[in-house]
């Protein structure tokens, strides 16, 4: 007689089939899982880059001559700059203020004289950058410095001299020697997109069932709460993994991001991360119990935190300690690290395991909290 305990498999199967059919019939779930990653990855993969190129720069010499022309020619040859020659400093400064240029390079009238060998003073090259975007400004400084350095050694070499530097820095950049920002943005972006997908897929589903009254009759069947949750999670999990596979395939073959890690670790990490993301959506759903509130919460708490606090763009180590602690609650943080390492560095146990464990812990917390909130009761 105790069919209640034994029929778990059949009930679960029934719930999964039901949910899957609903997914297949509602274009918006499929769109979330497949359309969103494609659009967003295409846009960012091609669109976003932190490597500055074609920076408009104003060049102005108070007393134009062969030397200044030589220096400016180096700017014209650089990929990084689009130089514009200004007649005088005031014009150049106006251009900078009007944002026609991002920086100006100014050679004072006595530049050539001071550059002569034996001159006691160094010949100054004045660089003024628009500091509003500090990051970009710093990049421009570095690029200008590189162009200037190249010119200086060329200049000296032509006169049989050598630039004397006590220390020369020889940077060796591992994992991404050319510092291609796409290689690091794309894996990070996958983490952000999967956070959205995971939470969006489940954030509304439970709330929708409450609102439409579909749960009340189902509650009065031998169905267990665990079966209800599993029946919800599994189909969306499969869907989310599908979206993940699509994103990884695009990263690997469309954007040609190298993948050095092992696939099985990627699958395990994605699965654990997805459980955490789906768990968060579920928690939003059961807490709100109403689609409108669930929508509000999911818009506000998913994207921006994943974007800002995951280390995807902004370095976590440089945040104040309180915020660093806060980032431990953001599942995307661990996944960003995992993806960066798996894509660009390979299977590094010391990175993989702590992050995987933290993700698993988050998944357990979210799911357990949801489990506690769903009861077969209307109170």
């Amino acid at each position, binding site marked *: 007689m*105790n*069919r*209640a*305990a*034994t*029929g778990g498999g*059949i*009930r679960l*199967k*029934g*719930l999964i*089939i*039901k949910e899957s*059919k*609903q997914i297949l*019939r*509602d274009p918006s779930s499929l769109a979330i899982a497949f359309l969103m990653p494609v659009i967003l990855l295409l846009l960012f993969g091609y669109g976003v880059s932190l490597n500055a190129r074609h920076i408009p720069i104003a060049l102005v010499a108070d007393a134009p001559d062969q030397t200044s022309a030589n220096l400016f020619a180096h700017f014209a040859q650089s990929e990084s700059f689009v130089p514009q020659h200004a007649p005088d400093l005031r014009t150049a400064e106006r251009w900078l203020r009007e944002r026609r240029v991002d920086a100006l390079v100014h050679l004072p009238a006595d530049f050539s004289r001071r550059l002569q060998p034996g001159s006691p003073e160094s010949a100054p090259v004045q660089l003024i950058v628009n500091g509003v975007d500090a990051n970009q400004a710093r990049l421009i400084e570095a690029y200008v410095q590189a162009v200037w350095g190249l010119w200086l050694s060329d200049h000296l070499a032509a006169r049989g001299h050598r630039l004397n530097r006590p220390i020369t820095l020889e940077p060796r950049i591992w994992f991404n020697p050319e510092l291609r920002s796409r290689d690091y943005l794309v894996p990070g972006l996958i983490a952000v997109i999967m956070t959205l997908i995971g939470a969006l897929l489940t954030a509304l589903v439970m709330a929708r*069932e409450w609102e*439409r*009254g*579909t*749960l*009340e*009759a*189902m*509650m*009065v*069947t*031998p*169905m*267990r709460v665990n079966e209800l949750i599993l029946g919800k999670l599994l189909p969306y999990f499969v869907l989310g993994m599908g979206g993940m596979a699509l994103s990884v395939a695009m990263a690997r073959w469309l954007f040609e991001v190298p993948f050095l890690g092992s696939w099985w670790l990627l699958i395990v990490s994605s699965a654990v991360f997805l459980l955490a993301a789906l768990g968060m959506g579920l928690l939003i759903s059961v807490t709100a119990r109403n689609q409108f509130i669930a929508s509000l919460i999911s818009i506000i708490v998913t994207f921006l935190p994943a974007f800002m606090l995951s280390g995807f763009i902004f370095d976590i180590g440089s945040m104040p300690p309180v915020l660093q602690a806060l980032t431990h609650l953001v599942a995307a943080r661990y996944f960003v690290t995992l993806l960066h390492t798996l894509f660009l560095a390979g299977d590094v146990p010391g990175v993989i395991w702590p992050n995987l464990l933290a993700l698993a812990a988050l998944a357990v917390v979210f799911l357990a909290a949801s489990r506690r909130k769903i009861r*077969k*009761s*209307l*109170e």
Partner: protein
Amino acid sequence: MTKSMSETMTEAMAAAPLLHAEQVSKSFAGMARAALNAVSLCVPAGAVTGLIGPDAAGKTTFMRLCCGLLRPDAGRITVLDRQIGRDDAAIQAEIGYMPQHFGLYEDLTVAENLTLYADLHSVPQAQRPDRFAQLLDMTQLGHFTTRLAGRLSGGMKQKLGLACTLVQPPRLLLLDEPTVGVDPVSRRELWDIVYRLVATDGMGVLLCTAYLDEAERCQQVVLLHEGAVLGSGHPADFTAHLNGRVFGVRGAANQRRALQTQLRQRPEVRDAVIDRDRVRVLLAPNTAPPANAAPPWVPLAPRFEDAFIDRLLEQATQRHPPMQVAARPEPSALAEVITVSNLSRRFGAFVAVDQVSFAVRRGEIFGLLGANGAGKSTTFRMLCGLLPASSGQLSVAGVDLRTAAAQARARIGYMSQKFALYEVLSVEQNLRFFGRAYGLNRQRLRERLDWALNEFGLAPLRQQNAGLLPLGFKQRLAMAAALLHEPDILFLDEPTSGVDPLERRAFWQRIDALANAGVTILITTHFMDEAEYCDRMIILSQGRILIEGSPAEVRAGARRPEQPDPSMEDAFIHWISQPAAPEHAA
């Protein structure tokens, strides 16, 4: 006969009650009075027990307590020899529960919904083909197994909900208002299914309903009011003491409403309702009908509804005076306020409304009747300008609301089938919003607001969220919102679905007052006794008009040798079950 029946009942109950509630109490936070107060009752096997009471009596709360969805504050409920709260999963495996809004998955098909519930109840695969065939046959849904549940008519949805509940034959079936919004034909079919199972399988049923004719068929009735049991027993036990207090007064065919109003004014009359060609009058205890009255008062056999009203009016403190409505100015030319000719509406290949023509005169109550899915709501939506017609002409107050200036809509009031006010706003905020939306100025708005809050008894609830009101109050609020701007034309789409009999009486009293003041009213309903209040009506089936006429004419057309004096419900079923006939001359 009745006596022996109620004796057998007591024996059955003593033998093996399927459900036994003892002194059950339940209250909710924020509610002034307890939802249930020391309620005790038994549900025996092989019988239908009705839990009857007005809105907010605590019926649904009791149902939910019985299936473990809520926990009682005090008392004990034993279901199938197990106590609720101990082993609910085992209980839930053997009972069936059909909530008031059975949440079918609208994006799943009939068969998929059924399979889901079969899975949830772990019905073995081997038994399914037979069981499904049986259920589909019983509910006559066999032809629709691949249709999405969202595309079914209201009646079919309820039958599917019932089929889902019955997929594992339960020993105890809990039905919470299973026939709300269901047309009379489907209603009859639904009850055939339930009673067959009660007779053959010995299933016990606990039923909540607002239809008192359904209550009358129960073997046992428990009357619930404000959370307390007022009485219980066989329905006949309730009516016994009413012998000699119920009369029929026959009036001129088109004067029934006036006669009813007139009779209701008499101090000794407790209740007066229109019943076929006469007005049915219930006298207060220890009063007598007027001697030598003309028209004459004919004694009638009391029915359960009389008893229900009698008992509840004993509880009520005062009677509501008729609503005061400002008379609408006589129109100069437009005698026909609404005209519809050859109106059609197609959704893809499906023809929802097919060449419908009718006209409604000023101050008339015009009924649109029909089975679920006959095209009533579609016609309504076209008239209100919410849906463009595929072909044909329509005019409301001389214009087509879809294309006319927005200002023309200020002349109509609309109450949709589903409660469609803002649930998160308070009663007063809702009214203020609609008042302003209709352009009432500050002074006028204040007057109308006071009027609405008083007339509809909403003043004590003005700060309450509309979504938390009991159904009857929601209906009052919706009507108040529709009347705030004093429209000349009212569109009411199933305004009384699920509303209790007392509330419906008050509702029709208001409608009568409005019609007398010259307001034109177009209404749909599934309560056939309400159709009697209409001046004229049409019955729609599959988008076409089957018959148009006054209630008397509709009934007369259904007269048969075996049914010499059909009720409106009989007549309705007669017309609907006519073989599809070519265009009836209207």
